[in-house]
């Protein structure tokens, strides 16, 4: 077969070929020996095949847009609150007398939660707001930090840092953009080996820096991936599988 003359590319007949219509024999012969035309027919055939049956659209229910707006408005409010808090000193070295949250144990159980809530000792709370406190306090040194990001779009939703306060090792978590959506947020440390994880406590969303007692032994054993899960009140103490943000402490 001779090299086809570009001027004779049967451009407008290619659609016919691609859609299975008959074409003059000389057109078919040309395309057989012309790779640009063959490629174009293949491309046109693919597009034509996809267009052939337009899919039926399923519209979202009325009112769903309002939920989107409500969620974005909540973001905005939290960002404003965040800016207000930014007037306080940064996390790196802070003079504060934090009240470390009571260690919730390695597994949060709903029973514990209920008891804790009843006793008014639900974890977290003070953090940065304590900076306004007048009393002198131990220095807090940040050992390692990470931003907490969604797993898919890597949207930064907060930050966590391992901090040493005197001889304690604590985990500070700040998640202005998280929302428990009717459940609660739980903080986990996942081991580097990705086989083990421990619960370090329950997070109150959008409530400044919250501090969780962890310990050097956990870090030494490789529990350095901070994970925030959304949990339901479902009597299932294990991780729900709904990781809303995650980050690995840079130690």
């Amino acid at each position: 077969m001779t090299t086809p003359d570009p001027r004779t590319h049967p451009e407008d007949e290619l659609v016919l070929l691609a859609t299975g219509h008959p074409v003059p024999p000389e057109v078919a012969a040309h395309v057989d020996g012309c790779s640009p035309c063959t490629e174009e027919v293949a491309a046109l055939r693919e597009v034509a095949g996809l267009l052939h049956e337009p899919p039926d659209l399923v519209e979202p229910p009325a009112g769903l847009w309002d939920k989107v707006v409500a969620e974005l408005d909540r973001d905005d409010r939290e960002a404003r609150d965040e800016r207000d808090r930014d007037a306080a000193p940064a996390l790196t070295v802070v003079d504060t007398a934090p009240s470390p949250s009571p260690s919730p144990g390695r597994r949060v159980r709903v029973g514990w939660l209920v008891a804790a809530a009843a006793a008014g000792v639900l974890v977290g709370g003070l953090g940065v707001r304590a900076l306004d406190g007048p009393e002198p306090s131990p220095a807090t040194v940040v050992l390692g930090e990470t931003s907490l990001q969604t797993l898919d779009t890597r949207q930064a939703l907060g930050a966590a840092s391992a901090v040493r306060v005197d001889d304690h090792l604590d985990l500070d978590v700040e998640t202005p953009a998280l929302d428990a959506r009717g459940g609660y947020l739980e903080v986990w440390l996942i081991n580097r080996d990705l086989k083990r994880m421990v619960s370090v406590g329950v997070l109150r969303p959008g409530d400044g820096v919250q501090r969780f007692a962890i310990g050097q032994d956990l870090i030494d054993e490789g529990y350095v991936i901070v994970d925030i899960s959304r949990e339901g009140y479902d009597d299932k103490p294990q991780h729900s599988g709904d990781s809303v943000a995650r980050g690995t402490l840079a130690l």
Partner: protein
Amino acid sequence: MSTEAEADTDVDDVAVRLRAGSRDALEEAWTRWSGLVHTLAVRALGDHHDAEDVTQQVFVAAWRGRHTLDPTRGSVAGWLVGITRHKIADVHAQRARHVRDAEAVAREALPTSHAPPPDERLAQRLLLADALARLGEPRATAIRLALVDELTHEEVARRLDLPLGTVKSHIRRGLLTLRQHLEEVTDDHA
């Protein structure tokens, strides 16, 4: 979803304004593409409640991640499809994880281990149908008549009262334009 044909420049304008932080642009994107997003979610998840959650999350994520929208790299629709896939994959992974133990959660929930993308062809078909709607006339109608209604080019020419050569050229050029949209959906830039 809007059915009126819009020029590409209008759509690009949505991208530019959305990236710049316009809530109005997000609402326009919702009006135009929430049906596309929701259809993908419903078909991939088979559950209206989960699908509504995904559709909501896609537009919330689109707003929070609007800086990742590059108007020069593709359409807003292609970008939203990318986000939708991630959200659907999250739900699939979450469902799978619900029946496993906590150890498996740690292993499976890593960012790198997403489920395979849902119905590739459905996403492409939805995007093409959307792109066709904004192809402009008489090109869009010529393609619809020829490819959906399966009229011959001669019949299309008669319907549109246009010369046969013009109709053929419209159809071919239109299809080649649509093909570029097809490349967007396989180019994962979410």
